[in-house]
């Protein structure tokens, strides 16, 4: 319990920190976003409109920073993320339209990659000194390749040259989103190449991590005891070695999510995938602060949430965490 309480406290702090960073991003940057917006629209925004925008972003000069901060929190807690400059729509709506795609693509691909990578890693770690070891250099290579570059290559090979997969988009544009099989299969078809890219470039990390953990755990006495007990190879591998080696994997899963999300955002751009990454990118390019802030917040919250889940799973997997102080 204490463990979970501590974690909860930590998450609250992190959430607070993320919101605060978010609050300060537009404020610490040189110039203010409204002037930037005015400048870019060259005379199209009247001074009145500018004033209104300032108030909207809480950039009111007459307000103390603290009041702005309080107001920001107030708005946030009411689910109010502001209005996007670039899309002239509520940020919450913009994000709501994008986030399912990102979660669908990145989430599923990451889970696949984690599962596969962990399995392969267990195998390689368990069978050291066999042909499986030769997977390691390949893994190292792929773990170092930037996601977006792999995406470029994948498009060039599988879309442009071979024409097997569409090069861009999230589903067949002639379809109207619905819960029909046709639409879902199209989503899967369109998601295959991006997902494959994510899997290929992130799997190596899991393979290598799990392999190292397996190697370490395999030399633990309890694994030898399992073998001495004559349990089946499967039990020894999964029940004893992998079962323990996976614990650190789970916690690094949570930690590296932020990293993976970062990588996939850029990949989304390459694949014209209508996820959060693309919006973040346009928001940054357009200095669309409300959208930028909203997206960053959402990503952070999502990563935090994934951390909570991973923590929970960890707690379930490792009885020692449940120990009372």
């Amino acid at each position: 319990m204490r463990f979970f309480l501590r974690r909860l406290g930590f998450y609250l702090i992190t959430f607070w920190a993320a919101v605060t960073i978010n609050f300060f991003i537009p404020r610490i940057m040189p110039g203010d976003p409204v002037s930037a917006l005015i400048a870019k629209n060259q005379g199209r925004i009247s001074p009145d409109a500018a004033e209104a925008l300032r108030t909207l972003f809480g950039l009111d000069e007459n307000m103390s920073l603290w009041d702005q901060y309080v107001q920001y929190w107030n708005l946030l807690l009411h689910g109010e993320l502001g209005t996007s400059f670039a899309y002239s729509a509520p940020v919450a709506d913009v994000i709501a339209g994008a986030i399912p795609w990102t979660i669908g693509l990145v989430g599923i691909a990451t889970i696949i990659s984690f599962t596969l990578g962990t399995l392969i890693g267990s195998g390689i770690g368990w069978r050291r000194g066999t042909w499986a070891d030769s997977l390691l250099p390949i893994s190292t290579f792929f773990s170092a390749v930037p996601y977006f570059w792999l995406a470029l290559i994948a498009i060039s090979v599988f879309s442009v040259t071979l024409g097997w997969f569409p090069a861009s988009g999230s589903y067949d544009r002639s379809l109207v989103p619905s819960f029909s099989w046709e639409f879902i299969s199209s989503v899967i078809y369109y998601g295959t190449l991006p997902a494959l890219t994510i899997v290929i470039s992130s799997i190596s990390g899991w393979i290598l991590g799990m392999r190292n953990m397996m190697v370490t755990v395999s030399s633990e006495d309890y694994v030898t005891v399992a073998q001495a007990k004559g349990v089946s190879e499967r039990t020894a591998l999964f029940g004893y070695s992998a079962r323990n080696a996976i614990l650190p994997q789970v916690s690094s899963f949570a930690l590296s999510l932020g990293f993976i999300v970062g990588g996939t955002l850029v990949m989304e751009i390459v694949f014209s995938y209508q996820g959060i990454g693309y919006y973040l990118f346009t928001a940054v390019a357009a200095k669309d602060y409300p959208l930028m802030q909203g997206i960053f917040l959402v990503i952070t919250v999502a990563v935090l949430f994934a951390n909570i889940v991973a923590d929970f799973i960890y707690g379930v997997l490792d009885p020692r965490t449940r120990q009372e102080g």
Partner: protein
Amino acid sequence: MTIASPIGHPQRLAPASDPVLEIKNLSVDYGYDDDPVHVLRQVSLTLGRGEVLGLAGESGCGKSTLAYAATRLLPPPGLITGGEVLFTDRSGVKTDLLRLNDTQLRASRWQDMAIVFQGAMNSLNPVYRIGRQIADGIRAHEPKTSQKEALERAAELLDLVGISPDRLRSYPHELSGGMRQRVMIAMALALDPQVLIMDEPTTALDVVMQRQIVEQIAELRDRLGFSVIFITHDVSLLIEIADRIAIMYAGEIVEDAAALDVYNKPRHPYSSALLHSFPPLRGPRRELIGIPGSPPDLSRLGGGCPFADRCAFAFDACSKVNPELVFPNVPGDDPRRSVACLRHDPAAVRAVGEVPLPVPAELSLS
């Protein structure tokens, strides 16, 4: 059974009455590369049925390696490079454990021979309840047993070692060190094995707890009749509990004799020195000598006796020939004991053209 009978040496050693485990000329290397460390060199050891055999020696002399190699549990880069490990089952059939394939070996494990490791702390899977871990072993060999039956058996086993059966649902970290060690013993006894190898099962425990565990083992052995190989570097403990003691030094057995014989009439200079290294708790304060120097590096052994550097009785021949186990050159000794010392092996000394020296008084007590 013959123990590595050296050429030209007339004495024969009497066979153990009813061997259950015979380790013959077992050799073990560490490292798969061109430059392996020869940790065990042609070690032979026989365990009689129902016997408690103590294995003593300094840290790093290869005690654990021997135990692991005999069960083929040595982790990489350990490599068994030769020898036999013959196990005789209750009906007298001998099998060489080193020639079994994986399936046969797996089937034989725990049934025939169970092992309790050095650190009980790490021998239990931290994420499973202990009941399940005991049941795992049972069900691996008796697949027909239901989990429930297996857990019932586990409860009985816990009871056997004096732990309340409701501890079945505990995780290892919830148990104290002594309890964990008992759980390991209970687990080892799950399939009523004939041989129990215990690698320093009490080293991490307090004397009081050690006493409790040791008593438990003795009592269980009396009841169940298994044989034990008990590994420790606490010779005084061994003298108490073992029937026979084998002293190891630098990857070889240097002396193998009945427990009290080792204590009262050591034949090897190392055994003798070892016995004079710890102060007695009671009785007269005896003179303590200790052993100068430190154990040799196994990867840099020369041709001679590995103990020669530290030995008070070493002579020229000791640096030339590595002694083999022979019957001690002391009249009236138990014919089943053996020692690896050139003082007891004039034939080997002569074979390298040196003049044998007599057995010194310290090594020929009676």
